[in-house]
């Protein structure tokens, strides 16, 4: 923890070594988080880059508030995603990949198929916002339950319950194409 504190202190002074370390430690995770949120790898590349450019500008004003530093980066990424989705022309709902939506009611068989991130992204869009966030932070962001709980302002128990319901809902979507 002290190591992270020292790193952040130096990063707040815009020390190039500290900033680079933060970049290296978080770049892939932030990219995955954004891809899962928007389902478009090319757009996610530009947005990931922008997250870190924004972070360089904003980091002198960063305050920990007892949260892990990565949660601050996810907050920037989240805002970026919200902006992107707001600006984007609303497209008609794209159903899940045909092979998943083809009426195969056997959930096991459905999940045995190799899932692409774009399909997963489309599937998670049918979950509630809170469920989406838990799935994104846990599976793409690789955050622990405790970190997700701090970030979402919920208890760990509440996040575990959300995680449970999110996976159940995701499985249903994967099997049928819709949440029942």
């Amino acid at each position, binding site marked *: 923890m*002290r190591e992270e504190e*020292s790193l952040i202190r*130096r990063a*707040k*002074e*815009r*020390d*190039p*070594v500290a*900033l*680079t370390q933060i*970049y290296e430690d978080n*770049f*892939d995770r932030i*990219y*995955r988080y954004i*891809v*899962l949120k928007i389902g478009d*790898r090319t757009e996610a*590349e530009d947005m*990931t*880059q922008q997250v*870190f*450019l924004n972070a*360089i*500008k904003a980091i*002198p004003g960063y305050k920990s508030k007892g949260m892990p530093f990565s949660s601050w980066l996810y907050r920037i990424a989240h805002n970026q995603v919200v902006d992107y989705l707001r600006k984007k022309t609303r497209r008609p709902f794209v159903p899940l990949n045909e092979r998943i939506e083809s009426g195969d009611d056997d*959930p*096991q068989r459905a*999940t*045995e198929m*190799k*899932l*692409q*991130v774009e*399909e*997963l992204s489309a599937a998670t869009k049918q979950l509630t916002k809170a469920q989406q966030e838990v*799935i994104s932070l*846990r*599976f*793409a962001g*690789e955050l*622990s*339950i405790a970190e997700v709980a701090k970030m979402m302002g919920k208890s760990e*128990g509440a996040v*575990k*319950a959300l*995680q*449970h319901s999110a*996976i*159940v809902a*995701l*499985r249903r979507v*994967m099997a049928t194409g819709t949440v029942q």
Partner: protein
Amino acid sequence: MKKNKEFENILDECLERVLSGESVEGCLSWYPDYAEELRPLLETAAGARQAVDIEPRREFRDRAGYEFQKAVREIGPVRRGNFFAVLMKPAWATILLVVIVLAAGSGTVAAANNSLPGEPLYSVKTATESVRLAFAFSEESKADLYVKLTDRRVEEIVRMAEKGDAEQINNATDRLENHLLAMAGLDFIGGADVLESQLARLESAEETFGLASSRVPAATQPPTATGPGGENVTPPEEITPPSLAPIPGPADAGDIKTYDASAEEGEDSDLRTAVMNSAVMNSAALYDILDDVGEEVREALYRAIEIALVGYDNIISNID
């Protein structure tokens, strides 16, 4: 409800294992009673994790890395305080300098120079120092100025200790630490490498300090008191003063000698001498005041000593 909670905990534990690379079957073997219920959920989670386990394209990663480094270089390090960052822009700095020179004539700056942390004119004092730093264009002149500023901070710490104000001791110590770090970061002293090592040593020193409540070296060991029954009573929770001692400590305090640079050669010897003298005088001053202050400020003083010792030592050992 209780069963639900128990299942959610088990699911989470299994998820952690699956996300760490363990097989679904392996997880299920830990909880055979829940296997039927767990299996579909873990398979879904494993599928999702696999789907999201992607990496950015190589060319994108290279481009993004280049852009990031370029932005870091362009934006540069932070100047302390946004207010001063604005003031340090050439036009503002010139105006400010003129104002300060005029103000100096009226005695305001002179008065501010004697002010102490917490006093109304103290902000004028620190502002004046910032302007002086901004106009110290060479690294050598910056280093000279930092040496003087560290002397000022130590003087403030001593005065605040006399007043029993631990909070202001800590504030002045923070400024002292900033000066020492800034000096260590000057390119001709060692730049980023020395700064890195100084930060690491300061961290380690602070960690030692924080954990050192039971170690009290003989030099500052409080006298053992005698209890009502004649038994020896050691005062509780005595805090250890720093004992890194690369620089003269309490034993030298009664006989302060400035550093003799006659044997030094090279263009940095003057600076080295100045830093050595500053280190000796300041550490002695900090140790001296320890004997005259109450418990309420001792911890803050130990921290100040620790930071001064580590900071000076690192700088001195890197000036060739």
